């Protein structure tokens, strides 16, 4: 059986609480600590290592459970907070072996706090770090130091901000998030916007019910899938996972302890169809918009997932690998050339493109995760252009977020001709933290060579 590229809940899943052998693993970390009513404190599920994961995107051991809070609108943006149990993740500073470090959660009470931030007008998830400041308070007293959450990618959540945050006790917490203006180059519908500092505040209760929800909601996959190449499909953000059989009369019911919510908001059954992430399945091509935040019931606030547009939605001439120059445009994201397992789309927009300077063309390079099309931010890319074996240009690309094409790396270029070769060099890999399943990919990234094909790829 071919491995699925994306992994959904129809595939073998076991849940904590069900008595199977695999679940002997799902124990508790906090032996010795007790809750207020004397039960053993279970702040996080057992973390299972995948032995020898491939240097590629791989299927983790489990699907994380989380509590979604109501999105908050602030000026041009909206912020959706999500809370899970503290868990390991990997931070990246540089490109060598020592540049990636696994973060171990601290013992005791705490949450993995996450935010998705998006532009309200375009629905684009903002995949950039400008130094958010998060402060946590309990009874008016600040808890711990202020913190700047890491930019992170996860298979379920796409691009988001997050960190593990220790909490001193069960109780009510107030979180303030300050987001400074976006300094990354913005174009199209985003140009000259996102220029103000925005502040959002939310509250949450950390208690036994929360722990049961997020620890108990974890789903372990059958062991045979752990570490195989592929990715979990994006979760269906928002609280409408069960939209086919629940009526969500109250918009804030997901704050409570209603158990139907924990985990059901990630896609399953028909909900999968809604998120057109599963390139490998080939049956989702009719889904056009990547910021599909408008098609659920009005009373749900949908949280967009940071998927880039599909290949066919990019204008211009899509460049090919030299060996595949006559094969036509790759049909699926997963068929794009890969470097460090990142799929890389390169297209040349004709002169006169709004992205180009003067009458030059525009080279748009869009590295993304191979299955879920999550943009890979904070890389440094450059290109070398050759014609008839001689170098004609060497350019550093600028990280840019466009209202239509979202995050990419680009530069204006002189007109390219069929047969020109364009080599994309990854000067440094994406400097974003990773959840399990992404930490071995997008690190050692080889140059990729492309050729301008004879005819327009469309």
């Amino acid at each position: 059986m071919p491995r699925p590229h994306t992994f959904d809940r129809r595939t073998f899943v076991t849940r904590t609480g069900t008595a199977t052998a695999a679940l002997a693993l799902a124990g508790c970390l906090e032996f010795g600590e007790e809750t207020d009513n004397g039960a053993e404190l279970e702040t996080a599920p057992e973390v299972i290592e995948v032995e020898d994961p491939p240097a590629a995107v791989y299927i983790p051991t489990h699907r994380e459970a989380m509590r979604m809070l109501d999105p908050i609108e602030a000026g041009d943006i909206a912020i959706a907070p999500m809370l899970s149990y503290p868990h390991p993740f990997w931070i990246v500073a540089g490109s060598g072996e020592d540049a990636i470090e696994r973060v171990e959660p601290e013992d005791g009470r705490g949450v993995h706090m996450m935010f998705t931030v998006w532009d309200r007008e375009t629905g684009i998830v903002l995949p950039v770090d400008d130094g958010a400041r998060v402060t946590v308070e309990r009874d008016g007293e600040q808890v711990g130091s202020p913190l700047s959450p890491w930019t992170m990618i996860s298979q379920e959540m796409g691009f988001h901000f997050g960190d593990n945050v220790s909490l001193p006790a069960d109780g009510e917490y107030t979180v303030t998030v300050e987001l400074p203006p976006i300094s990354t180059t913005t174009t199209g519908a985003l140009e000259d916007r996102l220029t103000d500092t925005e502040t959002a505040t939310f509250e949450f209760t950390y208690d036994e019910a929360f722990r049961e929800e997020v620890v108990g909601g974890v789903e372990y996959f059958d062991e045979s899938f752990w570490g195989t190449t592929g990715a979990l499909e994006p979760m269906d953000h928002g609280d409408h996972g069960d939209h086919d059989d629940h009526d969500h009369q109250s918009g804030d019911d997901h704050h409570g302890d209603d158990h139907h919510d924990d985990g059901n908001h990630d896609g399953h059954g028909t909900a999968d169809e809604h998120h057109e992430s599963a390139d490998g399945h080939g049956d989702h091509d009719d889904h056009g918009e990547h910021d599909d935040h408008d098609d659920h019931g009005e009373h749900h606030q949908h949280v967009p997932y940071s998927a880039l547009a599909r290949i066919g939605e990019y204008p211009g001439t899509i460049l090919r690998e030299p060996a595949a120059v006559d094969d036509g445009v790759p049909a699926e994201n997963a068929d794009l050339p890969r470097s460090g397992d990142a799929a890389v789309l390169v297209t040349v927009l004709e002169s006169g493109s709004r992205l180009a300077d003067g009458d030059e063309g525009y080279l748009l390079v869009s590295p993304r995760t191979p299955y879920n099309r999550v943009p890979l931010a904070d890389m440094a890319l450059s290109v070398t252009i050759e014609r008839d074996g001689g170098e004609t240009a060497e350019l550093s690309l600028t990280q840019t977020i466009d209202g239509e094409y979202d995050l990419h790396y680009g530069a204006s270029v002189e007109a390219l001709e069929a047969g020109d070769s364009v080599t994309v060099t990854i000067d440094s890999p994406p400097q974003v933290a990773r959840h399990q399943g992404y930490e071995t990919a997008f690190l050692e990234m080889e140059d990729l060579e492309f050729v301008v094909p004879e005819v327009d790829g469309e």
Partner: protein
Amino acid sequence: MTLPDRSSLSRRDYVRGLVAAGGATALGACLDVTSDGPEPDVPSGTDDPASLPDRQHAWNDSLSTDADGTIQLPEHHVLCPLALSDAIADGTDIDDERRETVEAGLQTLERAYEWSNEGLVFTIGYTPAYFARFDDSLPDSVDLPDPEALTAQETPEFDEFDALLHLASDHPSVVLEAEEGLFGDREQLNGLEVETDLSDVFDRVVQHRRTGFIGEGLPAEHADVDGVPDSIHENAPFFMGFRSGFADSQATEDRVTIEDGPFAGGATMHVSSMAINLTQWFQQENHYQRVSKLFSPDHADEELAGEYGEALGGSSAMTPDRIDATEADARERGVVGHAQKAARAREDGEPLLLRRDFNTVDGDQPGLHFVSLQDEIDAFVRVREAMTGTDLEVARANSGILHYLFVNRRGNYLLPARDARAVPTPTSDSTDV
């Protein structure tokens, strides 16, 4: 302010808490528990204050150095904010009599304590808000704008009181005692009778009083404070775990001295107060990442820093090559060092700032009071721009230490020369007192 609880704290932490609390009771408690004893052996000052350096900021020649020759700031610091007392707040009554009072008070400190780590060093600086009450404005030779936010990430409060006294000594009891002595709560300072105090001229602005400490091993002793991890190296002098302040990365006192005009011999001072997230820094990053981000990626690859900067000896090893590599490191390595970035602002190869920053746990949170001297505030602004590095193509989390710092306050000050330090006017030449 309530005193810290003796029973629940280590001795050093308790003493630190006493310095933070301030006041006569804290001083008494401090003398009881420190090795200082009730009669600490603190060297006396000079009978001839005129023999002291002309510049208030001339501390270096009198401070001790470590085995590698790096100047060691005194261990305990108090930043004591002052407001002109109501009676003279409009400025019209700032006259020679007031000046004499202030000068006499400050000279009392110089007579009581040796100008050294073991004794006391201090400065008094004045804000733009102080000078704003006079009809005259400051001469062009002094660059002292109102403080402002210097990065897109911060919304700081500003020091808008009038003056700031920076007191520093290795003896916690000395900084406490000096502060008490100046404000009339102490009859003797180090055995010397106090004749004049400053309370006719200044009120203390207690809510903005700040305190701190610096020195090998002191940060690790605060591991019981929320947000200070155990993993901080036991010898580290600064919260972020490394030595700092190497001579080759510091401006000289000459360099930061105002050369012309009525305030020649003075300097400007910028004070910013910031929180530091040490949890991410120590619990999440590895040593290699810390060295890359604090010094430079090359420092990390070459393993120049050792465990807490000791392997650097007396030099930051911030060579022109490493400084010039900043832009390339941003793109090609994905990370740049804080010191490397800031060093881009050097002029003629010389650092522009003389940094006298120290750690704090004011508000029971780890932080830094960043005290920087330079000849003009604009020099600070330029260096801070270089440190912020918006020109660099690098993820913010890997752009030095920006990710961990949260600026809460900023203040700008003029430190006049010693002979002009007592409630100067914008045009006052050294006032003869």
